[in-house]
């Protein structure tokens, strides 16, 4: 009945039901789309536009001239940029994978029933709740080779005989920064995974137990597959976050090339050097690299959902 009715009206030249529905949908979507265009689209457009110019923020009057793709040509040959890309990727791979493993362990632990569980869940969030600038400065002092508490503890416990210069030795700098990020962000990972764990119904474990599954088998066959969506979302969040890393590195090691991330390098060009053009090209570079990771994740996530 309905179908014929729709067809009739279409024949008369009126909008089909589907088209009307689509129009209503667009109407409802419009406010959000406009907001997205204003807050994300316009800055992106301006950044790309600026990246095609040579603009010096430090001169009055402001001079800006179009240079085409010159900034990008330089970017491809800029060894400092590629070093910062390398640092950022190393930082991301190590911090995210360690955080995921530790976070999963902690989530499983606090998902179990034991006295004081509520207090435990709150306490574990403390590192995440401290502003990064504050905790990074704190760690900077703790890492000090003469008065730092880390060297002091290691020597007292007998782990080492000499004090390490954690933030001065090129081999130790990046690991030191990564471990601060792990300390800080593991709670966030644990929280996301805990939420995932709580959606798994208890009956499944009971059924497993009835069938004689060991706890390990229960984990592999029940927990992990059902946790996958939550795990993937947590991974995406953390990866994108880690690729943008700025504060922990900027506070702990400044613009030292050994640890400089993409965001630190771009800030140095934009703010310290006033190079609005090249700095914008770097920002576009960061955007492209993050976009690559997003595509990889979205593709793998879609496969998962299907």
């Amino acid at each position: 009945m309905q179908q014929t009715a729709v067809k009739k009206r279409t024949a008369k030249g009126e909008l089909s039901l589907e088209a009307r529905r689509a129009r209503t949908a667009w109407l409802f979507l419009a406010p959000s789309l406009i907001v997205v265009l204003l807050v994300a689209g316009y800055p992106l457009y301006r950044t790309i536009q600026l990246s095609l110019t040579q603009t010096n923020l430090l001169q009055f009057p402001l001079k800006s001239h179009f240079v085409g793709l010159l900034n990008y040509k330089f970017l491809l040959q800029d060894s400092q940029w590629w070093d910062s890309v390398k640092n950022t990727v190393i930082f991301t791979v190590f911090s995210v994978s360690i955080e995921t493993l530790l976070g999963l362990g902690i989530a499983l632990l606090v998902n179990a029933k034991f006295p004081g569980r509520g207090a435990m869940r709150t306490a574990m969030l403390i590192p995440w709740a401290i502003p990064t600038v504050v905790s990074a400065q704190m760690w900077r002092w703790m890492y000090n080779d003469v008065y730092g508490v880390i060297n002091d503890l290691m020597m007292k416990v007998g782990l080492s005989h000499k004090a390490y210069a954690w933030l001065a030795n090129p081999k130790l700098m990046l690991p030191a920064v990564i471990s601060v990020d792990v300390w800080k962000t593991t709670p966030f990972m644990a929280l996301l995974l805990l939420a995932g764990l709580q959606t798994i119904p208890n009956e499944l474990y009971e059924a497993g137990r009835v069938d004689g599954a060991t706890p390990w088998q229960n984990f592999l066959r029940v927990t992990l597959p059902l946790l996958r969506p939550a795990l993937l979302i947590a991974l995406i969040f953390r990866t994108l976050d880690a690729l943008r890393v700025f504060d922990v590195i900027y506070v702990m090691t400044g613009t030292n090339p050994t640890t400089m991330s993409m965001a630190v390098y771009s800030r140095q060009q934009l703010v310290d050097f006033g190079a609005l053009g090249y700095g914008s090209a770097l920002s576009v570079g960061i955007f492209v690299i993050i976009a690559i990771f997003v595509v990889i994740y979205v593709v793998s996530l879609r496969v998962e959902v299907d």
Partner: protein
Amino acid sequence: MKRIWLAMLVVFGALFGGAALAQGVTLHISCGAVGQELTLCKEETQAWAKQTGNTVIVVSTPNSTTDRLALYQQQLGAQSDAVDVYQIDVTYPGILGSYFIDLSKYFSQSDLSNYIPAYIQNDQYEGKQIAVPWFADAGVLYYRKDLLQKYGYTSPPTTWAELTSMAQKIQAGERAAGNDKFWGFVWQGNSYEGLTCDALEWIYSYGGGTIVDPQGNITINNEKAAQALSMAASWVNTISPPGVLSYQEEEARGVWQAGNAAFMRNWPYAYSLGESADSPIKGKFDIAVLPKASTADGQHAATLGGWQLAVSRFSKHPAQAAALVKYLTSKDVEIERAVKGSFEPSWPSLYTNAQVDAAYPFFARLHDVFASAVARPSTATRDKYNQVSSAFWTAVHNVLSGQAQANQALGGLEQQLTRIKGAGW
């Protein structure tokens, strides 16, 4: 009769505008907030406001010089008149010079000759006097009087070689006596602006120039500069802790003030902190001019720090703003700031002033320090100074951490600076 007077008042009011009869103009000044800076700035500007009938509003700014520069860049870049008088660091004139007015209209040559000449020179941009020094700062050598005496030395080292051997002896002795955390010499080795200051002192004291000379020529790739850097690299892990390559001012002071170092290179601010009531080294240390190279052309060098006052070109009241600058940098206000807040005056004559010396005896020794002051090449390299400094400290850091030899690093640096310079600074 009364009516006539009233009418005349109205006419006068119309002629001279509201400002002449009412409360004057409103100025905004950006002041630092390190230690007592903000309190003193408020007191002094209020005193001027009372005298002149104007209003002054103090705007506080971030403590870090890099962050403050970023803020000023945003304000000035947006052509904002929100701030009339800017407190600017010694490296800003070359970077932000185009945003400030020429003060030589308001300061005569004899007015300007009252200030430390190195600053007056530093504060010029394209032949214009765009700022006037407010308070001075320069690198100094801190040494432990008690330890020097204990190991048989009567005076602080005058050459780097002397400093090295004294540091070695004291460090070995103190460690044998049970303090295994003791080090000879701490300084600022992190890769940041502070390393540029320290390394400039080493290189200049060897006669190796100032990275870029006042004419804008790149002079850094020379044998003396390489010698200076090799010397500094040899300190790391011998008389200086390995972590010195991550130290800024406060980390160096942390080691020093706990009594774990014989010598420290730092700014004068660490003096009053070291003399504070709960300091373990209170009364045990003093300051001196930094050592020089033992070679014939060796000379003492102290990198200039310090803050200047400049008037924004977007200010609506440049004459009043310049008058405020003149008042704040006047002799009386500088004496007051020295006595109340231990701010080093920008007037060389005040270092031997009885009132100042009574409050801070160590000021007399700073006079020699300022006599050997050397400015960073920010005036010559203009708005590319930050790029030059960043390339310089990165190259120096590579030498110090053993990733490059001095000669090789300086050669690479020269190439890099040539590229940054391009057609000209």
